[in-house]
């Protein structure tokens, strides 16, 4: 068996708990970048969802299937094209969009495949990251960005404000948005993003395609 790594805060990641609260029981869920399947398992246990996962790492896929989850080895940049429109109630992209090659295309695919898209991402606008860059003059490393720049898979890091711009660019509607501070407390995102962009370490956006669904 592969070792399943522990989430940083308590038994479950705070963004996973938030997603589990929002998802309707018995719905169809596609978790893109599902990792070891922690969220899929949580959703199966608490919401009896019909869950599927896509994961790039072969080892993690095999660990998921061994746990009884329906997961395929695949690449968010390539393999989402295959899915039909509105095949799922929720298409979830959990702390993965910053590691995709074409974040806009991936987001558009999520909005096409799911009636709703739920996207979480680390916020590059957090004050500690800004401070690190300002005072050390070097690329920041944090809990969510643990690797040095040359090792990091995250080629498309963004701030909450940047992501909100991308949402506008793909003409999606924000149904809910929440940032989490470094203690895992929720900072609801409303009109002004500045405070959340400064204090949020990561954010979760629930989006809906304005035209579809």
């Amino acid at each position: 068996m592969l070792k399943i790594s522990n989430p940083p805060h308590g038994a479950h990641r705070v963004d996973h708990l938030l997603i589990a609260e929002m998802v309707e029981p018995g719905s169809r869920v596609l978790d893109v970048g599902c990792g070891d399947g922690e969220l899929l398992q949580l959703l199966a246990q608490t919401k009896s969802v019909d869950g599927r996962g896509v994961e790039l790492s072969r080892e993690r896929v095999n660990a998921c299937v061994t746990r009884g989850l329906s997961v395929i080895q695949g690449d968010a940049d390539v393999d989402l094209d295959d899915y039909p429109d509105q095949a799922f109630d929720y298409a979830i992209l959990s702390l993965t969009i910053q590691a995709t090659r074409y974040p806009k295309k991936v987001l558009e695919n999520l909005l096409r495949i799911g009636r709703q898209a739920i996207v979480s991402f680390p916020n590059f606008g957090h004050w500690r990251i800004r401070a690190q860059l300002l005072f050390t003059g070097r690329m920041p490393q944090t809990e969510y960005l643990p690797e040095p720049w040359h090792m990091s898979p995250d080629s498309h890091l963004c701030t909450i404000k940047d992501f909100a711009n991308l949402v506008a660019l793909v003409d999606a509607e924000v149904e809910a948005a929440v940032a989490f501070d470094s203690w895992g407390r929720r900072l609801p995102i409303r009109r002004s993003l500045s405070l959340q962009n400064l204090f949020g370490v990561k954010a979760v956006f629930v989006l809906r395609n304005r035209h579809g669904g």
Partner: protein
Amino acid sequence: MNTAPVKSFDDSTNVRIAEANNPSSSVVHFPDSEPLRLACDQLLAPISIAYQTYGELNADKSNAILICHALTGDQYVASVHPMTKKPGWWETLVGPGKPIDTDRFFVVCPNILGSCMGSTGPASINPKTGRPYALNFPVITVGDMVNAQVRLIDHLGIDQLFCILGGSLGGMQVLEWASSHTERVYSAVPIATAAWHSSQNIAFHEVGRQAVMADPDWCAGDYHSHQKVPRNGLAVARMAAHITYLSEEALHNRFGRSLQRGSELTFSFNADFQVESYLRHQGSTFVDRFDANSYLYITRAMDYFDLEAEHGDVLANAFRGTKTRFLVVSFTSDWLYPTRESREIVRALNAVAANVSFVEIETDSGHDSFLLDEPEFFATVRGFLNAAGVKRGLSK
């Protein structure tokens, strides 16, 4: 009649012919009144389907697993082979407490139509002539093999199979079942297989068939009447095929350039290299247990398999509306049925939003990996069956 010198078969050939017509396993016979309509539009009757079962069918008949064997496989998936006396070919996977747990599941493994272990095939006696069918046997397809299995499953009184598993040609049967009889398949595990046979695979099969047919002892397929066996041709076919089941890395690691006797080249065409000796052994033992005409017919059925072409060149159409849960498995070093071809199946299943898992197992053993002890493969099959069993309401 025949003018060839009459000589009797050796013991192993006699046993092989006996097993083809009167197998050691269970067998069900369907009479002339229940012919099987084949893809070539001929009616085949009577037909026999030889099969083995393991475990107990539960009261609501919901725990049945069908295992489909590959080209030269047989129904002895977890029991001793009556001729070779070797353990079952998937005994590592099937048995009490194994990933396919016979304490929990009722496992059925039929010998495929066209084979030579008791199901109707070219080595079977044609009741109309009293002689083996040989080349009078009609050319069959994977669909025909599956339709014959449907008869067996009906005979056993099973409406829906909990799972169908198979590797290689077995995987093709799994895909055919899941496509043509989707409502009867709760879950499906196609392993190391493809939705259509590639040009390269057809090419290798053609080499094998030509080797058999070039053997003068093949006698235009009528070798039984001449009391002959095309040993050399079938052995060469097996040797060539066996290379395709392995990988360069596996061959290199196992044999390298090691010499057979001492460390001297003999400056002859003897088997100097260990790899030559190994292949010769593979060829000659295969001839003892397999019918040459069956080899021709089954390889042909594999060549004809093209689930995509059968569905308007859109593979997804083969699975539209499916409720079956799928686990697709490939192996990194399998160049005969490479991961790319498994991924095509996964893409088609995604296109209809089917419930699909897909694992690629890292191994250097080539196509044959699915027959070997691969712990990660076993763990994923076990996990998949457990989860599907919970969904199906089967007790642990």
